[in-house]
């Protein structure tokens, strides 16, 4: 049993079959990549995992519990954190405040009427936030307005926010999309470091083969809404079907 089990998931938009009979199993403490050409249904699948979309049929189980019909925040509380393609952070808030919010969510749950105690007195939260920031080498930027960060730092902050919740599964949606080569390599190093230092499962949707093959332990190839193959990176590289459906075109 994987930590994330997707079984027979179908999703149609009008006449378009976005997902057809998707089966996927992500094993605990692995890095699992999902790749596929544009329009293969990667984003639709991801949205089904986090509660933004509800599949027409099939089941999505996380750690033995169904996520279907739950709100995104409930799914996050179950232990799934998501990193967006373009960094989604609280732009009006400082870096430190950005970090504290997920820490509160982890500690207090989806809603807590904590209206009278000062933020400055939440020592445990501050400590935790600072700890993760330090890990991510961002402690010097703690008082900056997060909207004024560079794009790479925004991505780093978003990942830090997710990590501060100690998720069991981290979902990354094309984390290096639109990045320069240097930034991409930094991100790869960062993710590698995360992988090494923590007990965490990472599912990554990616276009960039360089990223996929540097990180992933298992790869699922999606084409036209259906998984073609699932295997280790080495096997995938040589797989004829994959070449035909995907690598051939992108090379």
């Amino acid at each position, binding site marked *: 049993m994987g930590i994330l089990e997707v079984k027979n998931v179908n999703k149609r938009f009008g006449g378009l079959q976005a997902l057809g009979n998707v089966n996927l199993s992500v094993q605990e403490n692995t890095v699992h990549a999902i790749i596929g050409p544009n329009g293969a249904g990667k984003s639709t699948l991801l949205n089904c995992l986090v509660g933004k979309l509800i599949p027409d049929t099939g089941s999505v189980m996380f750690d033995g519990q169904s996520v279907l019909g739950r*709100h995104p925040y409930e799914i996050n509380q179950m232990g799934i954190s998501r990193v967006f393609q373009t960094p989604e952070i609280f732009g009006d808030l400082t870096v430190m405040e950005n970090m504290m919010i997920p820490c*509160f969510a982890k500690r207090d749950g989806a809603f807590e009427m904590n*209206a009278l105690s000062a933020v400055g007195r939440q020592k445990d939260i501050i400590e935790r936030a600072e700890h993760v920031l330090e890990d991510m080498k961002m402690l010097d930027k703690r008082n900056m307005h997060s909207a004024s960060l560079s794009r790479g730092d925004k991505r780093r902050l978003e990942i830090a926010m997710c990590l501060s919740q100690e998720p069991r599964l981290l979902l990354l949606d094309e984390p290096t999309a639109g990045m320069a080569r240097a930034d991409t390599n930094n991100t790869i190093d960062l993710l590698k470091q995360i992988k090494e230092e923590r007990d965490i499962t990472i599912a990554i949707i990616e276009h960039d083969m360089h990223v996929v093959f540097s990180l992933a332990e298992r790869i699922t190839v999606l084409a036209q809404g259906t998984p073609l193959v699932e295997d280790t990176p080495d096997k995938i590289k040589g797989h004829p079907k994959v070449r035909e459906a995907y690598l051939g075109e992108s090379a």
Partner: protein
Amino acid sequence: MFGLDSKDTKLLIVVALLVILAPFILNPFPTDSALAQFNAGYPDLMQRFVIFGIFAIGFNILFGLTGYLSFGHAAFLGVGSYAAVWMFKLLSYNVIPAIALSVIVAALFSVLIGYISLRRSGIYFSILTLAFAQMSFALAYSVLSNPKFNLTNGETGLQVYPGDPQVLHHEGLPDVPHLFGIAMRDNFWEPVFGGWSFTFNNGYYLCAVLLIAVFYLSIRIFRSPFGMMLRAVKSNQQRMNYTGLNARPYTLAAFVISGMYAGLAGGLLAAMDPLAGAERMQWTASGEVVLMTILGGAGTLIGPVLGAGFIKYFENIFSKINDNVLHQWFSFMPDGMEDFMVFVLHPFIGKGWHLTLGLLFMLVVIFLPGGLVEGGQRIAALFRGGRKKRGGAEDGEHHPKPSPHVAE
């Protein structure tokens, strides 16, 4: 002190001092001088400053922090007033039960309206609240005041009649709203120093104490994790949702808190003057509290209070300047000059105070999105020799940042 950091404590103390000393501060001109026209230190206006300050502080908790623009908050103020007057009619003129009930009723009402309206955001939310407020107004003005079922007394406004039960009223208690026998409209001290005279009014000090209390409460809310969550709602609801936080109870809580502030303000209005008119529920009355908050500075602690004071000053002082007064001011000029000045200023004073207010409001929205507080900070920055640090960041307050204009 009081669980606040030193900066906030200072702010609270400054506000408390200003409020307590307001009867002096607002009457800077000798009573017989020509400038006495601009004195604002009489009980009714001081009460209004403080009451609408409370209203605006509450509104700011919703709008300033979460960015949800409600056009229906006057409805909560209105039901608060109605609840208070009903307590006067049924129980007694004691203001404690009246104010308590007005807060409770406003809370219930805002739970109901908030629960429904907050299912939408942005302009849809604004229009939903607008629709609710207009419905409440229409109901209060005519439907609920028909002779068979008279809940609001319609156009005239709800008031206490000699035939009302007032079960707890007894001989010796004043026949006006009072706090355990202390009549709200009485003054406890009317000193005269030279040409200056000042009025210290019981009702004003009740309002003042409550303002300081709710201002303190709003600082606590701003600085709390809850306040941070509200700012997160405004900043990025998507991220909030994917961070395991349910935005709706947060916004609903903010909505209800601000509704209760409005209810308190409504209750106090009735406690100072036991008549509740339906007009205070009209959508333009809701627009007024929006104006106050923006004018002062949405999202800042002190801004809404300043804005409320500013608008009420305009409404009560500016509207009373008439051409005769203008002629007196400019009487030192040659005749032609005098008439010209009066002619130029005429559209903006007296009956034209709406025009002045509208212009001012536009100027603030265009050039000072942070309101008067931002204006003050810019001026202060100028005096400090243009230190680079912008005001907003240093006190950790939350100003809507002016976005760059579209390039040509």
